[in-house]
């Protein structure tokens, strides 16, 4: 049996003396779509950044695909994709150059073809050679999603992925997430859009006082 994409126990993280995460336990299997809910400031972004290995947990254990992130973070990062509140791309590079750069970081073979494929998926072919700075919020968000999916991750961490997307793009993302779920990809996403989450999530958890409450 393969190791679960996420196995976390007792994750804690403090900001300014306040425990934003106060002992989070989370196990996510392939094909799970876990929806994270919670009030503003509840710690959803912090939890997703800890799971993405961008933040260190103050205490607790986290392993991704069986790799303890304290010792083997690079192995875990090969298989995860993350989208935060911003694009994590360079505004002075074009969409194609941004994806090409990330393809190089991931060591993707036949990178140009894969980049073209993802630009087409994101509906950005016409804008592919324009700097990101000129993109609308929705276009930038689609580029961020394309960046996160470029290396075909088995775990996708999405922080408010529907934010800024028009109805058509949001529907396209929902279809993609359903396809990924069927393909066995694990997804953890936060969103305030309860209606959208209801149709997508296999499980829903709410962060309350730094802990997950399942519903």
């Amino acid at each position: 049996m393969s190791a679960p994409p996420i196995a976390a126990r007792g994750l804690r993280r403090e900001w300014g003396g306040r425990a934003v995460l106060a002992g989070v336990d989370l196990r996510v299997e392939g094909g799970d779509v876990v929806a994270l809910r919670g009030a503003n400031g509840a710690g959803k972004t912090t939890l997703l950044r800890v799971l993405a290995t961008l933040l260190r947990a103050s205490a607790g254990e986290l392993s991704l695909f069986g790799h303890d992130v304290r010792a083997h973070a690079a192995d875990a990062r090969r298989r995860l994709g993350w989208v935060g509140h911003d694009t994590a791309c360079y505004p002075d590079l074009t969409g194609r150059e941004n994806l090409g750069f990330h393809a190089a970081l991931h060591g993707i073979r036949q990178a140009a073809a894969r980049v073209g494929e993802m630009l087409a998926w994101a509906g950005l072919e016409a804008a592919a050679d324009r700097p990101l700075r000129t993109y609308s919020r929705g276009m930038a968000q689609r580029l961020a999603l394309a960046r996160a999916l470029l290396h075909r991750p088995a775990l996708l961490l999405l922080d408010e992925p529907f934010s800024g997307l028009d109805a058509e793009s949001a529907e396209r993302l929902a279809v993609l997430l359903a396809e990924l779920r069927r393909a066995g990809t694990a997804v953890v996403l936060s969103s305030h859009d309860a209606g959208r989450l209801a149709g997508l999530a296999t499980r829903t958890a709410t962060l309350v006082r730094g802990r997950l409450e399942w519903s």
Partner: protein
Amino acid sequence: MLRAAFAILAKDVRIEARTKESLASALVLGVLLVVVFSIAHDAPPDEAPRLAPAVVWVTFIFTGLLGVQRSFVIEREHEALAGVLVAPVDPAALYVGKLLGNVLLLGVMQAIIVPLVAVLLHVDLVPVLPALVLVLLLGNLGFASLATLFAAVTVRARAREVMLPVLLLPLLVPVLVGGVKATQAVLAGGLAAAGEPLAVLAAFDVIFTTAGVLLFEQVVRD
């Protein structure tokens, strides 16, 4: 590691070639400093060359601070750095890529500032050019190795424009003194006379490049 480092270098070069923000601002400051130093001293032509080493290195340090700082500001915009950190990239590769980009940028600045100083302060560079290039390269690498590390430390600070020079300048004294002394020695008698300051610069390069490679992960991750 090298693949990622060169991808980061190529990305930085492409952004700089497109925006020219670091180079343009640093060069304007550099030219102004050189002209102001030259006019302020107003030395006669036979004494002016003695000022050249100090003018070159003080100008280099101040313009370099500006250029290196900008190289990390682009990583904070749109949270671009997080996109790199979530990729399977050794943080040492990120450091090496940024370091190489800064060395290149500083090298271009030196290639413009040094001839300008030579013209304004009546220095004949041609006979000592190979030795001078070695001194400039060693000083460049020493400055860039430390400044790249500290630019990553201060880029998240609100007052980063003040923080970077305040933290960095005291630590750069060996580069400044070594660079000035080595340049003086090279201009006076060639490379053989510059042994001791060159050794200081080389030791500084090795120590802080190694420190940067080892410490960068602690610096860039929260």
